[in-house]
């Protein structure tokens, strides 16, 4: 975590005092809030106080520089009030957070935290202000209706992510990533929280069952390679055209040179 410490070193010496003060206020406030929010989000009730404290420490050390000590946000990062456990689990679980560098969009890296730490961070953020919770495992089994999922995917997601989830370009260097190999939880959370340039698909827009179906469809594609053979990145006609020119015509020209060379 070299870069977090570099960030920390840049802080004003008084900042530490301030941080502790804010930390105390936040924990106190968190306590008070907790009793009223446990009913709102299913998983906060299950998480113990120690987990939340652990999450708070991790947050203060790794996230607060950008998101502020009480999630209020800074010039370097948005407020996390109300983003919920789902957003944290997605952002940290896919390695997007803590963000490494400012760019068109936060890039994915190998996750920096263990599953327990991620859960602790999520519990902490959710404990401060409720928001979308981590989805129920029953929705993530990939046992829904793939046909419905496929149609919903083509209508709602393919314009950015490509029909086969191969990814696609957005404006100004932003892009929608490839979706193969993404964990079912993260797919669900991405729809629920709309990371960065992705729209939010709330439960009125796509019901939990619809989301389950979309996951079912994506997992079907992932587990059933193309019956036609190598997929060439599922990029469509561009990849096919390049392949036809370079390998198809290339092979044939090689044969032509060979055939005519033999006679001389």
């Amino acid at each position, binding site marked *: 975590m070299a870069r977090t410490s570099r960030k920390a070193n840049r802080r004003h010496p008084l900042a530490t005092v301030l941080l502790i003060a804010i930390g105390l206020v936040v924990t106190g406030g968190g306590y008070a809030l907790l009793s009223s929010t446990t009913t709102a989000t299913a998983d906060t009730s299950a998480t113990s106080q120690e987990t939340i404290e652990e999450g708070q420490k991790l947050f203060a050390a790794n996230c607060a520089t950008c998101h502020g000590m009480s999630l209020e946000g800074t010039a370097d990062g948005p407020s996390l009030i109300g983003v919920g456990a789902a957003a944290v689990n997605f952002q940290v679980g896919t390695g997007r957070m803590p963000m490494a560098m400012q760019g068109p969009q936060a890039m994915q890296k190998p996750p920096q935290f263990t599953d327990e730490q991620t859960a602790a961070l999520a519990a902490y953020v959710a404990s401060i202000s409720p928001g979308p919770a981590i989805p129920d495992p029953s929705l993530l089994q990939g046992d829904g209706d793939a046909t419905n999922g496929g149609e919903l995917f083509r209508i709602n997601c393919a314009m950015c992510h490509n*029909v086969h989830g191969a990814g696609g370009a957005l404006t100004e260097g932003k892009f929608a990533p490839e979706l193969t190999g993404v964990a079912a939880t993260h797919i669900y959370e991405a729809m629920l929280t709309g990371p960065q340039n992705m729209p939010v698909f709330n439960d009125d827009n796509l019901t939990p069952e619809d989301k389950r179906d979309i996951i079912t469809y994506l997992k079907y594609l992932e587990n059933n390679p193309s019956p036609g053979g190598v997929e060439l990145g599922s990029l469509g006609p561009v990849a096919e055209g390049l392949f036809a020119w370079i390998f198809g015509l290339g092979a044939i020209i090689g044969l032509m040179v060979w055939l005519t060379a033999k006679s001389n």
Partner: protein
Amino acid sequence: MTTIERSDAPAEVAAPAPAPAKSGGFTAAAANYIDERTSISGVVKEFGRKIFPDHWSFMLGEVALYSFVIIILSGTFLTFFFQASMAEVTYNGSWAPLKGMEMSAAMDSALKISFDIRGGLLVRQIHHWAALLFIAAIGIHMLRVYFTGAFRKPRELNWVIGFTLFVLAMAEGFTGYSLPDDLLSGNGLRIIDGLIKGIPFVGTWISFLLFGGEFPGTAIIGRLYTLHILLLPALVVAFIALHLVFVVVHKHTQFAGGGRTQKNVIGYPILPVYAAKAGGFFFLVFGVVALMAAFFTINPIWNYGPYDPSPVSAGTQPDWYIGFADGALRLIPPGWEFVWLDHTWSFNIIVPVLALLVLLGLVAVYPFIEGWVTGDKREHHILDRPRNAPTRTGIGAAGVTFYAGLWAAASSDIIATHFQLSLESVTHAIQAWVILGPFLAYFVAKRVCIGLMKKDREIVLHGYESGRIVRLPGGEYIEVHEQVDDYERWKLVDYEVYEPLMLRPNSQGKITGSARLRVRLSKWFFEDRIAPASRTELEAGHGHGAAAHDEIEGPGHH
């Protein structure tokens, strides 16, 4: 090798007729029976004695022809199962994620071909890969003909026929791509619909006529099918036949070389050597296509799903041969559309469409332009090496660069994601490339050609550097230059240069505007030129002997 004289018909009767064997058995009897009733042996003999010179690039047209044969064979198979109807059905085939989905009968049958008919997917993929290859082979064959000047008199008309085939092939490809009525091709059709609607005044009318009402309607697939399997293939076959008749009539061109003149063709007679080779080559091409189809997915319509006008996938592109048109549309900056006189003027569509038509038009008539500029009325059967026609090669390089820019623009989104660039910067870079690139390519190609010609001249006159350094008794070091052999020399000196035309009054004593234009073009074409080494220069060069040394290089130079 066999030489055939171009002028004398009698030379072609020399071979003995296939003897009606005394006891040739059934085959001979049957052949005889047929020949007596059709006189076919004359045709076979005539055709079989055609000479085909051997150079790998002369087989590119054949690749196109063979791909077309493969397309016809595999396409015929597909017609047995494909249903060109837009009637709504519920899919009930083997591909699970589409089960229960409403779709057109066309899509349904294309999916059935893919998953429920034995060998169907393989044949579909053969058909599509062969189509991509077909047009690629035509394109590269055209480039070969262009850069070697094979389109010159008497072959200008055959160039136009070939060009027509190229356009027909693109139309074949596009209509075929649209038939399965999947999401990808539906979006492609929608773009065509947009292009048509962009034509001022009549666009909407034409679109309604074509689609039988508002897009997409329920008629278009059936109409495209008729075009795809009936009208266009008939035209392609007719034009291929014409094209080949012309090839036989003109006889094949050849590169310069010892014994090769404007009056002969050196190579193998079609029967038996060439036919055997060509037959074998057909199976090689088929083999390559079959391997591609067996191992590599093409157009996975099951991923695209049935056409529905609302969704559009990221990375929606046409097949490669329509890419240049898609790219041209993508390169137009925003804001070129406005309302004037109660009509919408879509210059974002009119301009690229016109640009493409001009590009294609120039390709079609280039032989006539060059013929007019040179004023050369002679027949040309010896090919140019591209370097020996620097301006033509430069123009070709400019055209290729322009086309490549449009082509790249069609994949701007994929370039952006794969090289982690922003879509806007890719688009701007390609805009600059399309405008400036052709000039740069023209200039560089022309200079390179002239440089190569200078080098050739140098080699002919003084031999090439052997890399062998010899120390003379006096202590002087020289590099030995070796003379090229006679065969090589032919290649290097057998070309013609044109000089710029002079401005002269015509028979009425007037200087017309077109004459001025012609002189100006001629100057542009032929101002920079390197004459081939003449006989006298050659003889002077040989005087030096094998150890001739015009350049004396010290050891430190290497």
